[in-house]
């Protein structure tokens, strides 16, 4: 049986130019309307370039200076854009970017760690910022950030237990995990919970058989993956679902060739970049997750 992917390739040079050109959109209203995502977008773009072997396409100095310009000195952490408030999500992206650019020495680690730990709730979850929205996404951001900074040991055994217990309380009847206690399983939340447990070395909290089944049921006849039952396929789930399956060592439970074929067919072979599904507009978010999946 010939695989679909043999007729399509990952158009690396095209995607590299696409990512390079993203910063040129300063006349575009949409570019400015998404300033609250800029730190994340730089992370997505840089990571995709690294995977494709073209990290140099984004100039190192400029990237590092951009990250540092998002430092919120009042909070001691990073916002999404200059003058935007600090948030755990943008702080993780900042750390990831600086790590990839070998510039972690630019961070005031002590202050950032203080910010992260200040967001740890009695229930074990983390808030995203001082306004208190809680979500397992932020739990992952905190654990991952601390780990990348080499400061995970600052979560003492009581704090670690509390964190793991929160994740366990988010476990649902289908083996999956939601954003908060009681929430429906969603592939992105499954990723953040499973990844956090992996970092904390507590994968024993996962019902691997049940969750493995729920995850492989995300694959649709067209090869794409969805995020929840009866939802549409979307390239970004190539990352959320696939990463979780990789951590659980269950990649063979899905048809990898068909998935690759789906991702490649969502490429924009004229302008570059990858979209959520074939025929849609490309964006940097889906470009990263498509490249990572493929």
């Amino acid at each position, binding site marked *: 049986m010939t695989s679909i992917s043999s007729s399509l390739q990952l158009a690396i040079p095209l995607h590299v130019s696409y990512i390079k050109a993203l910063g040129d959109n300063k*006349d*575009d*209203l949409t570019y*400015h*309307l*998404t*300033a*609250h995502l800029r730190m994340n977008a730089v992370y997505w773009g840089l990571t995709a370039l690294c995977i494709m072997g073209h990290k140099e396409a984004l100039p190192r100095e400029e990237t590092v200076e951009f990250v540092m310009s998002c430092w919120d000195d009042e909070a001691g952490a990073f*916002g*999404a854009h200059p*003058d*935007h*408030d600090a*948030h755990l999500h943008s702080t993780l992206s900042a750390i990831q970017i600086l790590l990839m650019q070998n510039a972690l020495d630019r961070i005031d680690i002590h202050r950032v760690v203080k910010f992260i730990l200040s967001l740890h709730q009695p229930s074990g979850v983390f808030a995203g*910022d001082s*306004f208190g*929205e809680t979500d397992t996404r932020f739990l992952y951001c905190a654990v991952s950030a601390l780990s990348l900074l080499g400061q995970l040991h600052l979560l003492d055994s009581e704090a670690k237990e509390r964190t793991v217990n929160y994740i366990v309380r988010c476990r*649902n*009847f*289908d083996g999956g995990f*939601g*954003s*908060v206690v*009681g*929430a*429906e*399983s*969603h592939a992105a939340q499954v990723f953040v919970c499973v990844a956090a447990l992996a970092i904390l070395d507590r994968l024993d909290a996962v019902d691997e058989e*049940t969750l493995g089944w*729920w995850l492989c*049921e995300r694959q649709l006849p067209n090869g794409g993956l969805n995020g*929840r*039952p*009866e*939802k549409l396929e*979307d390239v970004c789930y190539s990352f959320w679902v696939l990463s979780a399956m990789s951590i659980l060592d269950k990649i063979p439970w899905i048809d990898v060739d068909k998935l690759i074929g789906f991702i490649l067919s969502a490429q*924009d072979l*004229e302008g570059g970049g990858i*979209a*959520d599904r074939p*025929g*849609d*507009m*490309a*964006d940097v*978010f*889906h470009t990263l997750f498509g490249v990572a999946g493929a």
Partner: protein
Amino acid sequence: MHGVKRIRQSAQVLEAKRLREKAKLDDYLSLTQDVLSRKKSRDWSEEALQLTSRLLQVNPEFYTIWNYRRNIFLNGIFPRSSLEEINDLITKDLSSTMTALKAHPKVYWIWNHRRWCLENTPNGPGAPGEADADSWRKTNWDRELFVVEKLLDADPRNFHAWNYRRYVLASMPVPRSAKSELAYTCRKIEANISNFSAWHQRSKVLTSLGESSGSVPSQYLEEEFNLLRNAMYTDPSDQSVWIYHRWLMGAGK
């Protein structure tokens, strides 16, 4: 970005679009600059509040501005307002976020602001112990269930709305019964068998009825299997039904 169709546009079309948007862009950038500089200088005025309203209408995902708006309320406006005035302002923000949610039902920041409004509804109008000591809060909370039901009618799989529903049910001054929630999920499932969100909610309500045991009390099992059997006959290819069945078989232990 999700679900946006790719359209090939010629250089001329793109240039025309750019010119049309230029005025909007200039307005947006100058408004943003104005608001952010007021924020930096800790401007907690009524005028600043109005500017945040304008900016958030254009871009409800600008989380920093939601933060600033709340800080204006807390630091500037609430301290010089009566409890009744505070309740009025909160009620107005609940109303404007409802409008925003109809257009942007999946924006976390709008849902967050609603929660903040509810949690900051003052006690009153009566004094503690009086009959109407809690009326403002009761009114605001009761309305929330109605708001969430409207949004779940529009999109029965909107997890923001389902999460919010659970939050409201857990926080309401006068709680609803587990039975009424089972009835609600049943209605949602009857409307659409493959509403996994409703099946999930059902699994949570049933588990809560089992309290600390973590399993479904046996008196509910027969009804569940009946519901499942009907669903299986209606649409045997729907995965919700099989995943739920697998769980129920385990829960019966």
